[in-house]
């Protein structure tokens, strides 16, 4: 009736009961040890039950050894991936959240792969068929997923390089890269016999080179100009430097193309150091621009002079928060080079007062355009 295993586990249960009783009476019933020992009773009893239920999994004859197809499981990549995911999750918990998120992704991906492999390994007795069903279930996800990950990595590495080297160097670098890719493509196309062997050399080498270059770039940091720009807070959305040039690098990367033609109510132009304005639908110059109150309105600035200019809109002044400090209101475009354009989109809730009229000006150029908000 009772097998060896169950006898052992029943003995363990009994001893745990004795220990628990001893503990309850001699030590302290509300101590953590008491509950741990109760847990031990539960666990040992569970194992006893399973031992009796499975009869120690004893088999005397071959016939009793049913469903005996268990060969050694095939090699699997996923246990280490899952362990790595777990380690990343924990590392992320203690350090960077991004590592945690990546770890979760690795964990989920590895877990799903493991699950499918575990199923497909025994889908049939035929190994080839099994790997085929595995591929059928996961192939449609694996390849795109893997290439997406690879693309992200490659893009990330390239971006590190872009950010680290100077603009000119980056241009030359990528011209060279493109040339090399073109040349290699040509060689591969021409020499079909080489392809496989060469590819197996070229791909790892180029990926390794990219990785090295990327890591080195990442470690060496972004190029000085960008670092300075970050220090000057140029990437903040509200950063506007409308007066004298205080910072060195602000505006160097302005996007000077304007896609919003249909939204533009007026165009302000600087030509020969003179500011002039035209309103949409009116084919002559105006010295006043009227824009509806509390409506998002766009004004285009076009610089036709050699020197870089910016359009500044002056919107009176206001107190800062609850303090008594009064600061001028207004904003401006980024610096705009010759023949380039920028837009300013304004939503003005209140009209100007007689003391503080609104206007558009261009520092360094003559004239101003009155801005009227009814």
């Amino acid at each position, binding site marked *: 009736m009772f097998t060896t295993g169950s006898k052992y586990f029943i003995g363990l249960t009994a001893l745990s009961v004795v220990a628990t009783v001893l503990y309850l009476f001699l030590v302290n019933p509300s101590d953590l040890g008491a509950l741990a020992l109760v847990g031990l009773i539960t666990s040992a009893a569970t194992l006893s039950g399973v031992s009796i239920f499975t009869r120690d999994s004893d088999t005397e004859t071959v016939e009793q050894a049913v469903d005996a197809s268990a060969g050694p499981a095939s090699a699997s990549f996923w246990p280490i991936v899952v362990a790595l995911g777990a380690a990343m999750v924990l590392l992320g918990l203690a350090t960077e959240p991004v590592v945690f998120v990546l770890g979760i992704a690795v964990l989920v991906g590895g877990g799903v792969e493991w699950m499918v492999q575990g199923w497909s390994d025994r889908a049939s007795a035929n190994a080839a068929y099994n790997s085929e069903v595995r591929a059928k279930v996961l192939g449609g996800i694996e390849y795109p997923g893997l290439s997406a990950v690879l693309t992200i990595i490659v893009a990330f590495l390239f971006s590190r390089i872009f950010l680290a080297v100077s603009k000119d160097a980056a241009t030359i670098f990528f011209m060279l890269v493109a040339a090399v890719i073109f040349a290699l493509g040509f060689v591969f196309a021409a020499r079909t016999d080489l392809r496989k062997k060469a590819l197996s050399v070229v791909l790892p080498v180029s990926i390794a080179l990219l990785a090295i270059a990327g890591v080195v770039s990442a470690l060496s940091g972004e190029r000085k100009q960008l670092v300075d720009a970050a220090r000057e807070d140029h990437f903040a959305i509200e950063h506007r430097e409308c007066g004298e040039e205080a910072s060195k690098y602000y505006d160097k990367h302005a996007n000077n193309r304007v896609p919003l033609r249909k939204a533009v*109510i007026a165009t302000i132009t600087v030509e020969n150091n003179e500011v002039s304005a035209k309103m949409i639908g009116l084919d002559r110059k105006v010295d006043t*621009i009227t824009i*509806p109150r*509390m*409506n*998002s309105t766009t004004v285009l600035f076009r610089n036709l002079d050699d020197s870089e200019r910016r359009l500044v809109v002056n919107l009176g002044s206001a107190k800062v928060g609850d303090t008594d400090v009064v600061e001028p209101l207004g904003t401006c475009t980024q610096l705009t080079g010759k023949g380039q354009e920028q837009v300013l989109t304004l939503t003005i*809730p209140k009209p100007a*007062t007689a003391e503080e009229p609104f206007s558009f000006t261009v520092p360094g150029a003559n004239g101003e355009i009155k801005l009227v908000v*009814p």
Partner: protein
Amino acid sequence: MDTVSRVKSSRRRILGTLVGIAASATLAGCAQNAPQDTWEPKGPNAEMIHDLDNLVFPIAYVVGIIVLGLALYIFWKFKDRGQEIPVQGHGKPYMEITLTVVPALILSVVGVFTFRTIFDLAETQDTEIVINVTGQQWWWEYDYPVQPEHGINQPIVTSGQLVFPAGTKVLLRETSRDVIHSYWIPALNGKKDAVPGRVHLLRLEANEPGLYAGQCAEFCGLSHANMRMEAIALSKEDFAKWVANQQKAYVPPAAGTVEAEGEAVYIAQCARCHQVNGLKDAQGKPIISAPDEYVYSGAAPNLTALMTRNTFAGAMFDLVNEKCRADVWGAPSEKFGEAYLKGVTEDCLNQKDLRAWLRNAPEMKPMYAEPNLLGPSDGKYRGMPYLALTEDDIDKLVAYLLTLK
């Protein structure tokens, strides 16, 4: 027997319906008082469209009749009488080519004229006056940019009625503060959408002074149907008078009068959203409204010289009573300016609607389906809210508003 009679009766019913529809469609064409009739152009732009219609519609009628006739003929000729199914062929090149080439030719003819008209309508080189038109739920704001050649030295903001000189090429710059609206005065031009963040141009020109009615033509919310507009064309002289009147300085009511009390009520209750140019508070500081804090669209009609307008609440209600209204609408072209510029006098005022509006605006004009649920609009109102004014306050307010001429 029974079956047959039932079939007959159902046929009769269908026939009756068809005849009814045709008759009402025909009779509608005979309407006398149809201010938004697209077939009665009153300005060069609408005439261009009308001329194009005169070309395109006959062609379309002919094509339509041919196609319909052929279809009916084929229905009748080949209807199922139990005959054998004809041989199913595949393609008749000559017929197919013909059926492709003929419509293409027709379309090219129509297209040439259509494109010409479209380009003509889009012309803005010779604009004489510019007016900004801004749509919001559910009224139109008109503001006149500073244009000294028209005597406009400070911006004029009005609403409900677009006033412009007749015989002058007017350019509307349309935009919107909330959703897409569409500006449409059928007698003067086609419709043009007003889209938030964009500026669309629409040319208007009236041959004669007069009143031209219109209607927002893009579904824009609960009171879309109540979003009307009236375009008022005045002779150049009358327009200059109107401009001068709009720009004249604000005259506060004499102290101690009921109008002065009304002004106080106005400042307390209305000035939060409604601007009256020149209105000053006790310290003598100009009062500037802040509708952006209360209203979803961020705007409320400017009430300066309110009594020069004939309508209020997005042209939904008349500001004048029926008799005075008939005087303006019925005035002949040469007398129209005089009638319009009279404005709203005390005996002309439509007391009933204006008071009801002040009493409880949301009841007069559907603004939000469920007034308690202002959530989706960030807790701001769409349109004028219920202000819980006392009758006494309303009396004072009406008296004050009558001074805004």
